[in-house]
């Protein structure tokens, strides 16, 4: 326990040093080689515009809007995935349909169907939410059904032996049993939703008043504010890291890892 803890600390320190070296190389090469700031702004100027755009509220506003869209899209994806999975557990032909749909849709990046979504739903936030939902729903469904299938049958029989009804069996045995897969499904779903949200906004730009980080970058690109583009990317990276490293890692530590149910590593 102690050993792994100190290992993680060393790993973090090493990563930190690596990132510092990377940033220093960036700054130095910009300064020494006199690269045009339009192509490659210096790290200092990126930080400057990051601070400026944070203080004037624009970055925060954009970030909140992106997260808001992702929140809606992910919630719809998770709830519909649960309903679809529940239906396909109960009804055989639904399950076959879902398998076929999954095989077709899972490899398709959500952003690829954006043109169709625009035709059907127009260009407002609802289209971005639709792209997020479609990007996120398939990994959730796939992992949910893999998770349910991976539960040892004896555990289900123990549940039946204890007299659990269908609902209790699902809630207290099937869901926790499938949780490791559900969690990795959510991880993939989150990553895909995040990518979809930013990408969708960069394709059709959303509307001025209600754009997220993708729109921020998109707009800054057209005004050649390269340092601001970098600042937007930094926020995207930071949020991604925060959710992945702090959020999911934490959930994994207090659940799957504690239970010894890790599916990988």
């Amino acid at each position, binding site marked *: 326990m102690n050993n792994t803890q100190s290992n993680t600390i060393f790993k973090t320190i090493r990563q930190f040093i690596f990132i510092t070296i990377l940033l220093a190389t960036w700054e130095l090469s910009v300064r020494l080689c006199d690269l045009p700031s*339009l192509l490659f702004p210096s790290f200092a100027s990126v930080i400057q515009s990051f601070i400026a755009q944070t203080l004037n509220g624009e970055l925060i506003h954009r970030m909140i809007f992106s997260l808001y869209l992702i929140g809606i899209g992910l919630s719809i994806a998770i709830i519909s995935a649960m309903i679809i999975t529940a239906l396909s557990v109960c009804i055989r032909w639904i399950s076959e349909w879902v398998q076929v749909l999954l095989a077709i849709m899972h490899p398709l990046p959500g952003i690829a169907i954006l043109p169709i979504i625009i035709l059907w739903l127009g260009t407002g936030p609802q289209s971005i939410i639709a792209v997020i939902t479609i990007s996120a729903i398939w990994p959730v469904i796939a992992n949910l059904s893999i998770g349910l299938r991976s539960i040892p049958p004896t555990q289900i029989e123990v549940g039946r032996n204890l007299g659990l009804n269908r609902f209790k069996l699902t809630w207290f045995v099937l869901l926790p049993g499938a949780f490791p897969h559900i969690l990795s499904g959510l991880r993939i779903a989150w990553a895909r939703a995040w990518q979809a949200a930013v990408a969708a906004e960069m394709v059709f730009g959303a509307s001025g008043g209600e754009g997220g980080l993708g729109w921020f970058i998109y707009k800054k690109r*057209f005004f050649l504010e390269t340092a601001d583009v970098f600042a937007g990317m930094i926020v995207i990276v930071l949020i991604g890291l925060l959710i992945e490293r702090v959020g999911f890692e934490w959930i994994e530590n207090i659940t799957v890892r504690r239970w010894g149910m890790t599916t990988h590593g």
Partner: protein
Amino acid sequence: MFRSKRLITTFLCITLVLVSIFNGNLLYASRPELKIAGQFGLVYAPLMIAEKLQIFQKHGLTPIWKEYGSGAAVRESLISGDADVGFMGIPPFLIGWDKGCDWKVSMGFVVVPVGLVTNDPRIKSLKDFKPADKIAVPSPGSVQHILLSMAAKKELGNPTALDQNLIALPHPDAAASLISKRGIVAHFTTPPYLFEELEQSGFHLVTDDVRAFGTRFSFNVGVVTSKFHNRRSVHYRAFVNAIEESMAWINQNTKKAAELLAPEFKLSPEKTYKYMTWPGMEYTTRALGLMGFAKFMKEAGYIKKVPADVKEIIWENVKL
């Protein structure tokens, strides 16, 4: 044996790298290739005709075409050195110049009508746009965006009054949305979309280029970097001459030009001809409206400086 083999390989690699570097610099001036970045559409008819009639080749140039989806992408390809010349609107050019891009305008490139079309009979002027009404422009900082800004200043007193209504959509998507009445109520656009949209019943113009800007102006300009202009001056002249020849040919043989280009636009020759000769369309290399845009964009805050003299932003050959 093994060691010497490796030495030779290393040596060869280094030589190759050095040669390619010197090659790039030494041969840059003498290569006849001309990398041209532009977009697709009626506006680019002079380039397409030049390609069909091999006009660049006649002037000793080997054109390499690079087609992009937006003015910003054209601009980026010039900045990164992927293109020698690029065609873009005056505002994207000025934004680049303001940010320190080392380039100038080499020619005007087509005057076209630009208009704000709406599918909503209720909207008669800019005042009638409600906050939820979406107005599509190709991109932020595009000619259409700046024109909308100008019109907003004139009619509503504030250049950014309609910025919250903006939505960035490529022309085909915006035209489809407008015609299917989904999502957007207005589209600031150019031919052929402008013509096609206006043919829909109930669709009408809210404002146009002349009302917003005051006069006609070059919708696109040919932008050339100092590097290309100064180090390959022979090719620069050849490029300008080629475009002028192509334009002259279009103006003299418009019917034939329409027949040649119709398949490219997937239109009938008659329709292509009609669009090419629409009132307000003019194929000319005069550069119109440069200072007007610069002054307005400075005032509205899109750029930070205005050229003290138009010579700062045009090459010596440009006719105003």
